[in-house]
């Protein structure tokens, strides 16, 4: 009963005319920011942060929240249509989304990712509504040893994520971790691999890396190859967004697993939507009976990650609001909105500021419905982007990537990094190295090192800490299971290959 009255209270706040307007504005801005490659949600929210001084804290949070989850909706659009991620959290959606678009199923992919996003977000909101205090409590059990075990699991699950040899995948994960270590070491203040560049103290920018490896390299490979005429004109009609019954059937479980995974990672400060999306893809590919379809337009490969990143977007608010611990720089900005207005985030927030807490949560519902309504009619418009001649499209994308990289910290350094990683990405394409594992290693690597070293300090140098702590032991045994499963799966696959494959599952794009 108590819950119902709280929900009513929240709905009242969220549906007030002002809040509704700002929620809509946030969702719309978020979608646009998401679609534009290179412009990150952090940069966008930092820029808009001063505007929120004049708003009520609840209204300000509702708007910034709308931008935050709106970008993840919008980000998949660029991944699917252009093979370049709108945001790093959508990078993995490229792997199967883009082949779908090239096969003339772009509309289906866009529609289904919108559904997956909505599903994942809803899942996250339900958890947020019912279990915030409980979840905040359990998140405290994750110490450094557990975080390290989780990161390791992520890397193992993802090592066979992309097409090609496992060795190459592992090599790219390792390279990603090394790139991630550049900057000032948090445990000793030693400056590593910056080669005297002051702007690299904070490390390589994720946006610059993702835009270089995926965006610029993709453009280099596509210029003079992609013809707008390749696209079947029927495939861009609004009626072409209807998925087949088979595709709907194959989407349910990936969405459920993705949402659960995303919700879990969202609640752990420091991890986030990108990791959740990568892991979801890795797991879907692992447990699928026909993993060879992945990378060629498998619907599971977009449904899992897109529900995972949106669920994580929502549950990321749990530690932020109830512990006062922001999981990412973007969440730190959300906390800043509260602090600017003199509201202290922490365990007393829910009881002390019920209008704010419940109003915000109900605005998430409202915002996600707005996004659903906003995105589906837009699909027809977005898909038409495929009919724009590529020679007009790609210079525009380059310009937007450059401006986006510049806005991240107002220095040209990030644009230079885009160029550098564009060259690296191009070399990787020639040498047939996959990009996604590199990005995952980059995201996970620094955290992995930090937690490993801290765990070693806390255990006074005893490796047994990883097995003695029960949660860490469970995660590590799961990791081992995934590893063994993967090795056995690979040998099974090899056996199967001896029998010549009959019909390939879908048209290949190469």
């Amino acid at each position, binding site marked *: 009963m108590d819950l119902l009255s709280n929900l009513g209270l929240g709905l009242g706040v969220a549906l007030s005319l002002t809040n509704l307007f700002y929620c809509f504005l946030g969702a719309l*801005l978020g979608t*646009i920011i998401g679609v*534009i490659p290179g412009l990150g949600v952090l940069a*966008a929210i930092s*820029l*808009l942060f001063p505007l929120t001084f004049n708003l009520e804290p609840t209204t300000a949070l509702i708007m910034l929240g709308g931008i935050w989850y709106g970008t993840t909706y919008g980000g998949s659009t660029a991944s699917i249509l252009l093979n370049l991620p709108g945001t790093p959290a959508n990078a993995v959606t490229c792997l199967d989304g883009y082949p779908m678009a090239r096969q003339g199923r772009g509309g289906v992919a866009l529609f289904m990712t919108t559904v997956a996003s909505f599903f994942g977000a809803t899942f996250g909101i339900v958890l947020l509504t019912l279990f915030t205090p409980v979840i905040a409590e359990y998140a405290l059990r994750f110490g450094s040893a557990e975080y390290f075990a989780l990161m390791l699991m992520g890397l193992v699950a993802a090592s066979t994520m992309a097409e090609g*040899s496992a*060795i*190459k995948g*592992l*090599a790219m994960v*390792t*390279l990603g971790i*090394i790139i991630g*270590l550049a900057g000032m*070491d948090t*445990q*000793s203040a*030693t400056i*590593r*691999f910056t080669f005297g560049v002051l702007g690299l103290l904070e490390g390589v920018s994720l946006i610059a890396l993702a835009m270089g490896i995926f965006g*610029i390299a993709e*453009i*280099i*490979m596509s*210029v*003079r190859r992609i013809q707008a005429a390749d696209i079947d004109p029927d495939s861009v009609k609004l009626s072409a967004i209807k998925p087949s019954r088979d595709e709907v059937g194959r989407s349910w479980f990936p969405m459920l697993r993705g949402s659960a995974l995303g919700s879990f990672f969202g609640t752990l400060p420091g991890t986030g939507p990108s990791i959740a999306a990568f892991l979801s893809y890795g797991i879907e590919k692992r447990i699928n009976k026909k993993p060879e379809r992945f990378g060629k337009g498998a619907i599971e490969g977009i449904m899992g990650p897109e529900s995972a990143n949106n669920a994580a977007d929502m549950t990321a608010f749990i530690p932020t609001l109830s512990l006062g611990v922001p999981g990412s720089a973007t969440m730190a900005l959300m906390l800043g909105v509260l602090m600017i207005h003199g509201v202290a985030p922490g365990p007393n927030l829910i009881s002390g500021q019920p209008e704010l807490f419940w109003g915000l949560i109900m605005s998430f519902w409202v915002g996600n419905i707005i996004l659903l309504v906003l995105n589906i009619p837009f699909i027809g418009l977005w898909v038409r982007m495929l009919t724009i001649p590529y*020679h*007009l499209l*790609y*210079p*525009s994308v*380059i*310009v*937007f*990537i*450059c*401006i986006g990289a*510049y*806005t991240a910290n*107002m220095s*040209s350094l990030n*644009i230079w990094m*885009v*160029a550098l990683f*564009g*060259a690296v990405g*191009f*070399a990787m*394409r*020639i*040498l*047939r190295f996959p990009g996604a594992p590199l990005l995952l290693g980059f995201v996970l690597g620094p955290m992995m090192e930090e937690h*490993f*070293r801290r765990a*070693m*300090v806390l255990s*006074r*140098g005893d*490796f047994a800490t990883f097995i003695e702590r029960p949660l860490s032991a469970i995660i590590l045994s799961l990791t081992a299971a995934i590893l063994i499963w993967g090795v056995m799966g690979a040998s099974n696959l090899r056996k199967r290959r001896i029998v010549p494959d009959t019909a390939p599952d879908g048209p290949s794009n190469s």
Partner: protein
Amino acid sequence: MYKFDYTDLIGGGLLIVIGGAVSVISITSYPLGVVQRMGPGMFPAALGGVLAGLGLILALQSLRRQGERPDIRIFSPIFVLTSVAAFALLIAPFGLIPAIIVSTVIASCAELRIRPVELSLLCLALCLFAPFVFVFCLGLRIPLLNWPF
């Protein structure tokens, strides 16, 4: 068709070089520490070794199979990367509009065919749209036009 898979041979070789360099830099420049208090050099030194090891495996494997001719492009990387570099050079001293125009023009050259009318229209459209999104909607503080001299 090549006798060996040269693509992977070169890829493996590059990994060995990068991994080796990372290890050497880490060991010589950063303290390694002890297990209980690992120094900043230990993790990268180990990773460099792993990377070089993976490169070695890759290179050895490549000798046991035939390879295809890799898909190497020359003009598109030159123009696309120059376009990004031009933007990086121009944005701070000259402002947004010159940076957009120059990098759009250079990027378009990757087509190896100039369409003057379409290119001008594209520049115009971007010069209107980009400031609208970034400067007007997001309140970004970049000068549209700047004359540094």
